[in-house]
């Protein structure tokens, strides 16, 4: 067998030897760095030309695009799960589901699905922490029907009681399996560990879902879904003046918008280490520190530092050392969260087989300590900037990309010129800026650890040079089902 294998290697070597590098044929560059590129001739598109404030007060971004017989819509409403009433966690999520599935005045529950399916309308209402997002796409020749349905869903939902009870049962069913897999388990546990006893760590439970009734949804809908509380983006095959006229009829005149502010939240780690016992063969690990709420003058420096540390994929230090060199994980990332509603965190996460839990963690910490001690190189800084700036043309591809991106931009209160200034802001960051933010935030002594894995295996393999799992204190070990009961 070895002889056969050896023969194959020799054969391949011979075959490969006749191939040429690109430089050997047709005067091609001998290395990609020698390719001479033409100019891109592209500038970041402005959002202003698409922006309208309609006669009904609706803030809208409108772009025509006749390439496909398609219309795409996204609307952002300032509301979200952070505003769920205490004890009724999950309300905003149910609001989104029931706006469509709970029927409307013109389309009762048993007919809304039929009309949506008959015309192949893609309609979704989803709720995040700090945003309710309505999205739709449909064939342009069904625009009249689609906008009739959209109007019904946005402004005339009836929140049918029977449908509400049915959706609640489905949600409760999903809740009982939300920790079957380790990834979502880690996500929930990390929020609990970093934002204890705040709206950012609350999770829906069976009781909180049961307490949600129709009256609550009607009230939430009244407060959240209104013309004045919306930023609307639409692109596709239509006539622009006709679309403006359509939207002015679809949305009622904007009235006063009530209290849409989100609660004030600060990151406040509750434990040094939170362990979720799960009998699996890997350890899912995330450790982090509190960061800031944007806008913050440290953001771009942190963004570059994060790219170099672990946000930049294979070329990042963590990707190179922990994944590529050591083969300890399939995925390792650093994430300096870009939060506009409450302070984010800066964390590192990865998964590795239980036997290398301590080794991978120690190596990650070593990489961070080296970054703190020695800073970054000129080449790393340049690479980070080029990568972060170079991706801009991919952000603005289609007219829909442009209007959706600027709608989102306005929702979070950023300058209309944010993307025009972005490259300059990043280019202004120096090595000293990066060193300063790493020193300010990325302190290994301050990390809060969250780990999902088999407790016995974690203990058996958690202490190596550079990391002592047993000494993380205070430490709490719980079952996945207990995560929602943490403060």
């Amino acid at each position, binding site marked *: 067998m070895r002889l056969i294998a050896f023969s194959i290697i020799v054969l391949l070597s011979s075959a490969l030897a006749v191939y040429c590098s690109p430089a050997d*044929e047709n005067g*091609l560059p001998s290395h990609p760095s020698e390719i001479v590129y033409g100019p891109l*001739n592209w500038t970041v598109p402005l959002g202003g030309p698409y922006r309208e404030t309609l006669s009904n007060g609706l803030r809208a971004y409108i772009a025509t695009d006749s390439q496909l*017989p398609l219309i795409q819509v996204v609307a952002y409403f300032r509301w979200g799960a952070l505003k769920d009433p205490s004890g009724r966690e999950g309300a905003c999520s149910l609001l989104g589901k029931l706006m469509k599935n709970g029927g409307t005045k013109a389309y009762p529950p048993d007919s809304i699905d039929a009309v*949506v399916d008959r015309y192949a309308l893609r309609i979704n209402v989803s709720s995040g922490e700090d945003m309710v997002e309505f999205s739709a796409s449909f064939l342009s020749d069904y625009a009249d029907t689609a906008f009739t349905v959209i109007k019904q869903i946005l402004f005339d939902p009836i929140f049918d009681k029977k449908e509400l009870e049915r959706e609640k049962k489905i949600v409760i*069913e999903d809740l009982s399996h939300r920790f079957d897999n380790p990834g979502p388990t880690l996500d929930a546990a990390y929020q609990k560990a970093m934002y204890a006893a705040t709206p950012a760590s609350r999770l829906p439970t069976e009781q909180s879902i049961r307490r949600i009734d129709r009256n609550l949804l009607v009230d939430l809908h009244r407060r959240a879904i209104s013309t004045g509380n919306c930023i609307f983006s639409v692109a596709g095959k239509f006539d622009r003046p006709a679309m403006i006229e359509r939207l002015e009829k679809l949305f009622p005149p904007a009235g006063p918008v009530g209290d849409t502010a989100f609660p004030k939240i600060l990151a406040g780690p509750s434990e040094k280490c939170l362990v979720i016992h799960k009998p699996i063969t890997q350890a899912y690990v995330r450790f982090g520190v509190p960061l800031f709420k944007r806008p913050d003058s440290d953001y771009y420096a942190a963004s570059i530092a994060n790219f170099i540390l672990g946000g930049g994929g294979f070329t990042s230090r963590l990707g190179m050392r922990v994944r*590529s060199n050591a083969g300890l994980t399939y995925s390792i990332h650093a994430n300096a969260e870009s939060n506009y509603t409450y302070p984010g965190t800066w964390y590192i996460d990865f*998964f590795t087989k239980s036997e290398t839990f301590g080794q991978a963690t120690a190596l990650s910490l070593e990489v961070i300590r080296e970054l703190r001690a020695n800073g970054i190189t000129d080449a790393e800084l340049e690479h980070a900037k080029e990568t972060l700036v170079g991706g801009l043309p991919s952000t603005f591809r*289609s007219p829909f990309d442009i209007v959706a991106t600027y709608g989102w931009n306005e929702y979070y209160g950023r300058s209309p010129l944010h993307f025009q200034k972005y490259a300059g802001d990043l280019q202004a960051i120096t090595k000293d800026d990066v060193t300063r933010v790493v020193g300010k935030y990325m302190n290994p002594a301050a990390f809060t650890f969250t780990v999902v894995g088999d407790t016995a295996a974690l203990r058996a393999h958690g202490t190596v040079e550079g990391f002592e799992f047993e000494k993380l204190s205070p430490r*709490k070990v719980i079952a996945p089902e207990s995560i929602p009961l943490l403060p």
Partner: protein
Amino acid sequence: MDVAARLLLSFLFLGLSANAAEINLPVSYSTLDNGLRLIMVPDTNVAVVSCRVYYFVGSMYESSGYTGLSHMFEHMMFKGTRHLGTTDYEKEIPYMDAIDSLDRLAYNREQAVGHPDSVSQLYRRQITETLDKQRKYIKKDEIWELYQNNGGTGLNAWTADNMTAYIVTLPRNKVELFDWIESDRMKDPVLREFTSERDVVMEERRMRIDNRPDGRYWERLNALFDIASPYRIPTIGWPSDIRGYTRAKLEQHIHKFYTPDNAVIILVGNIDTVKAKKDVARYFGSIPRAPQPKEEPITREPAPIGETRYTVYDQAAPHLDMLFHTPGFPNPDLYRLDVIEGILSGRSGRLYRRLVDIEGLCTSVDVSNDLRLFDGCFQISADLKTGTDPARVEKIIREELARIDAVPPTDAEMRRVSNEIRMSFVSDLKSLEGLSDRLAFFERLGNWKDMLTYPDSIAEVKPGEIPAVAKKYLDPAFMTIGLLLPPPGAMPPPPGGFTPSTEQLH
């Protein structure tokens, strides 16, 4: 010699009118002398180009002892070539050879004693030490860095059962970088850092399959559904095969499959098609074909002789799958099966209405008619509510299948399916990358043009044709049924009544 002058065996520039003339998709198709196909779709509204090279190889070309090799090579393609990722390739060779020998010693030791032990660990440490010496000559992840520095986004790769893709989206003026890197990867890949990347793949397998109840369940159900067809092979490979990978095995695999005559390049975006075609010829034109034409798998799934039933008890949401054997592409019955998929699918579809709305037994239902080469698969899946008797769900699905056998669909159902197919078709064209994958999918099945005519083929299906097709392929007597259920006697967690089992250790 001007390679461009000798490239074109065939060149088409087609302004094909797709789907009732509502979309004009300017697809150009050409083939180099060496068999490399090039598909381009210019779109001047964007500033970028989706650049993808697809090799028509995947797990269906693998066999026992070699499963997952295409996926392993997907990882290794980022390790570089003779010219990229190295400062002196020749000096790396002895280190790689030494690592191969040490790796075989470690492997043989583990096989002999049945598990890693101190001896195999010693070999592994020696591998690490040798690799550290080799790394003096390695330029880490140069391919990744080159793409990133030039505005590349979405840099990645993926592996499926019948093809593997290497993908990046570049600013429109940087497409030549793709030609340089991908032609070099096609010609001269180097399997450096092989053993550590094999460990990475094993971690990926643990994440995707071994530590996910649904992953474990599905991998085995798939292997039960196809008892002979190579679609039964898991794309990521069986664990013992992954551990048994060697550079020699992988090089043999590369030699057979990663050649221009088994690849298609698809460029979608703001592209100068004349220049792009010329550049592809310059960079790829001299790469030779495979020594032997690729052999397609010859093993076909034999007709089932009865029902296969498979039950797994695990910590997961209760779930049911019913799988039926269907023909491979092309076959006109596949369009009729697509119509059946449409009738059963969606919130207003027959199955959702019965199982979720009326009976309240399930939380969701999904139906898919998978188009595959040689052997197809029609799948019905349902997520069950806790406590639901799976036999009741199975009974209702059987009733609905019997109804399709007996009565043609209504005109309203046919209109709904037609709209859905049309919307799916248009939606696929929204993104450069989505269009690229769709073209590759149909080119893999035989001809990219089928993508454009697919909606019309569905529209030609007559309601009266449906019952016979349902009767022929969707016969429960020959289905594979899988059940993923909570362990017997397991109770759902009490409603909020937990007391956290805290452990204050220090």
